[in-house]
């Protein structure tokens, strides 16, 4: 024991005493007439760059870790980053962590503040107007806070959190934008206590196709004021954002496990709350993306006079505007709503006391199973082809369109399931990885036809090629 302490104590003390040293940041001051970029240049990690009130026509890049960019607010005056309609982005940051506060940012063509791949983002007390596509854009980042910030005049989203994880968006005032707050392909965000009004749409929790992070889940939207988001859409008409119908308070599109509660949602002319799947033409572009909004829970929200003058597209799609809209897709969506609420589309079921989550799938496609105990045919729905004794069993099968075939490698050697004619592999549509013993590959045949396949490593052996799945028409 003594020996342990003797060894451990200096180390512990060193750690304790080292803390203040690490925290003792260099402070670099920048005043009017000076350049913030110059102040940032060569600032060591952990520096604080303090900027006096004044106007700075600059585009800043922060690649050093641990930089705090602190605008000094004095008697209501704050430093202004002004792009004058010429510069692209106000701030691009890649260093982790990154903090910024106290600035006004205006008239940039591209974007206000973006953090790219940053772990630890703190953006607070910013005033952002007219900065192009987004006001604040943390992307591919994690552990994010955007608070006490005002964003206006943005032709896409005021606050846009994209492909990120763990974000807090709170106490912000967001108005006169196309979208107020957007949480896209992001997990574990909390959007609370924001004032969101006079945008085309208020708050959106959604997924988009062809992103690396394929899901957006577990966003909690609570205690926001979401009022008269009825502004005519002024976004790029060719972009997805430009197609957003005006008058929607909060919507969930394709994201999962979203909880929406205690919001005050009033006078949004198309819909107060909407739950829908990603539009088919966008969903089709990315088969790896699950386009439905699943397990959305609409808790107790104050819904007042929404949907009274719906955008024509909403009126056409749902027959009317309403406080709550659901397109009827997805599983496990539910609502706890007072009777006075108007409903459009398919009515949502009342939430169970504890909404159950579905179990995870038994074996995802292509994942090898345990090698000691082989997966059993009866573990899978639909036909199973076993690869054993250097042959496909059965060599040919007939199925109906829409059925999923499972291949299990029971041999000690590696096999593949690969489309090909004779000895010529084409690798489409069947293209398994190398399957070790116990490896499983699944494929769902949507179209009728004759699918010939082979095993790449053994296509020199007749029983391991010319295998077939014949898919009959669905109606035959």
């Amino acid at each position, binding site marked *: 024991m003594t020996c342990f302490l003797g060894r451990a104590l200096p180390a512990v003390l060193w750690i304790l005493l080292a803390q203040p040293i690490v925290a003792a940041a260099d402070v670099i001051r920048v005043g009017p007439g000076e350049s913030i970029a110059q102040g940032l240049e060569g600032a*060591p990690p952990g520096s604080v760059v303090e900027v006096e009130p004044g106007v700075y026509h600059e585009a800043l890049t922060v690649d050093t870790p641990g930089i705090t960019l602190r605008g000094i607010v004095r008697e209501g005056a704050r430093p202004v980053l002004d792009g004058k309609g010429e510069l692209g982005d106000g701030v691009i940051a890649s260093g982790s962590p990154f903090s910024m506060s106290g600035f006004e940012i205006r008239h940039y063509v591209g974007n206000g503040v973006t953090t790219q791949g940053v772990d630890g983002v703190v953006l607070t007390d910013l005033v952002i107007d007219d900065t192009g596509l987004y006001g604040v854009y943390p992307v591919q980042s994690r552990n994010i806070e955007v608070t006490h910030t005002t964003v206006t005049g943005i032709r896409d989203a005021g606050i846009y959190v994209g492909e990120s994880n763990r974000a807090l968006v709170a106490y912000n005032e967001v108005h006169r934008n196309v979208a107020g707050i957007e949480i896209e392909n992001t997990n574990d965000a909390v959007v609370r206590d924001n004032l969101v009004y006079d945008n085309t749409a208020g708050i959106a929790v959604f997924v988009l196709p062809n992103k690396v992070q394929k899901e957006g889940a577990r966003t909690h939207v609570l205690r926001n004021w979401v009022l008269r988001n009825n502004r005519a859409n002024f976004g790029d008409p060719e972009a997805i954002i430009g197609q957003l119908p005006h008058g929607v308070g909060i919507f969930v599109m394709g994201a999962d496990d979203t909880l929406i509660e205690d919001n005050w949602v009033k006078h949004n002319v198309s819909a107060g709350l909407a739950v829908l799947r990603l539009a088919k033409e966008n969903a089709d572009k990315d088969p790896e993306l699950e386009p439905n909004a699943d397990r959305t829970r609409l808790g107790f929200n104050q819904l007042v006079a929404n949907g009274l003058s719906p955008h024509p597209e909403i009126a056409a799609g749902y027959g009317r505007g309403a406080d709550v809209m659901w397109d009827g897709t997805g599983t496990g969506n539910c609502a706890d709503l007072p009777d006075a609420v108007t409903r459009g589309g398919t009515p949502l079921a009342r939430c169970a006391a504890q909404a159950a989550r579905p179990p995870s799938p038994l074996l995802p496609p292509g994942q090898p199973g345990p090698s000691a105990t082989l997966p059993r045919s009866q573990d899978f729905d639909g036909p199973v082809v076993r690869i054993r004794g250097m042959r496909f069993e059965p060599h040919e099968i007939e199925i109906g369109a829409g059925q999923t075939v499972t291949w299990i490698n029971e041999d000690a050697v590696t096999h593949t399931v690969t489309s090909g004619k004779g000895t010529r*592999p084409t690798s489409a549509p069947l293209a398994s990885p190398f399957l070790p013993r116990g490896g499983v590959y699944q494929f769902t045949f949507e179209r009728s036809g004759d699918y010939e396949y082979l095993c790449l490593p053994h296509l020199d052996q007749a029983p391991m090629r010319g295998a077939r799945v014949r898919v009959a028409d669905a109606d035959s």
Partner: protein
Amino acid sequence: MERVGLPALCARRRLTRVAVARWLWIGAAALVAACAAEPAPRTARLPTGLDRPFPRLPAPSPAEAERVDLGRLLFFDRVLSGPADAACADCHRPESALADGEPTSRGVHGPLARNAPTLYNVAFKPRLFWDRRAPSLEVQVFTPLFSPDEMAADPGELLARLRAIPDYVSRFARAFPESAAPIELANVARALAAFERTLVSRRSRYDRWAAGERDALTRQELRGLRLFRSLETRCFECHRPPTFDAPIAVGIGVPGDDAGVGGVTGNPAQRGFFGVPTLRNVAATAPYMHDGSIATLEEVVDFYRRGGGRALGVDPSRIDGQIRAFDLREDEAADLVAFLRALGDESTRPRAPESVPSGLPVPSPRLERLGEELPLR
């Protein structure tokens, strides 16, 4: 702008703490020791936020070195092709950054449909081919090998040839000691894949800059890097550091009939979509795009500046939403290209072996273009 070095802070703190309590002597002693162990004050070498880890590679096999050596010989050996006249290295040429400098590669029956991509950093790609149809390097190997338009190998014939070459017999045995009959197609693929995984490019001037060598990039290149990350160009959204690609399929609207990913999935909504190629060594892999239809980097930048295929009459539903026209001055375009040129690193460029076990001539493309066959070095 006072900047205090670490030892100075240590010393100052020691004085105050020591006075506080006796037990802190131990702490102070530890602190002094730590200060002494600390290297001299900070140098200019401070890693940036772009000093990011690459995706992890699979654990090497116990015989990895033997597999790599074997894979390298196979890569350069024309015995793999049916007519014994084309090796992997004929379309992935070391002196062309492991691409081939042609718009589309030349196959047995004339030009192929697509541009030969560089093999640098294929180790980090979860799916291979422009249309992303192969789920691993091992699986990828089989397509060019057996395609009648490319290497046109016959599987039985290929194995018979390899088994008849004593050098290969012993090399396969050493590389795959666990196999009873080591010369089999899966092991050909594994050896080639092991070799390809050594073709890693991550020591460019950009990487040195990201790791903190502040002079490694010029002012112009740094301006280009900023443009690369801007919300105007949005290059970074798909060409993500550190690999400068992304494991996704997107449409940018290069005109033409190639269905790309849509041809593999049968999904009409993905028609004309392709995998995102890496920009590592991009300056050395002209021409560009899946069909090699754009000759220079300057023209590529111009293509994107005008909104990709949007300016060329391509159906906008086939073009990703992030591909939009943007304003870019001539000097800015030059900055962007300058940055792309800083992504070059061919330090793992493979050396062609002086001879291969088959005894066939080793690819020496420049000379063969002249129709000559000369002994190597």
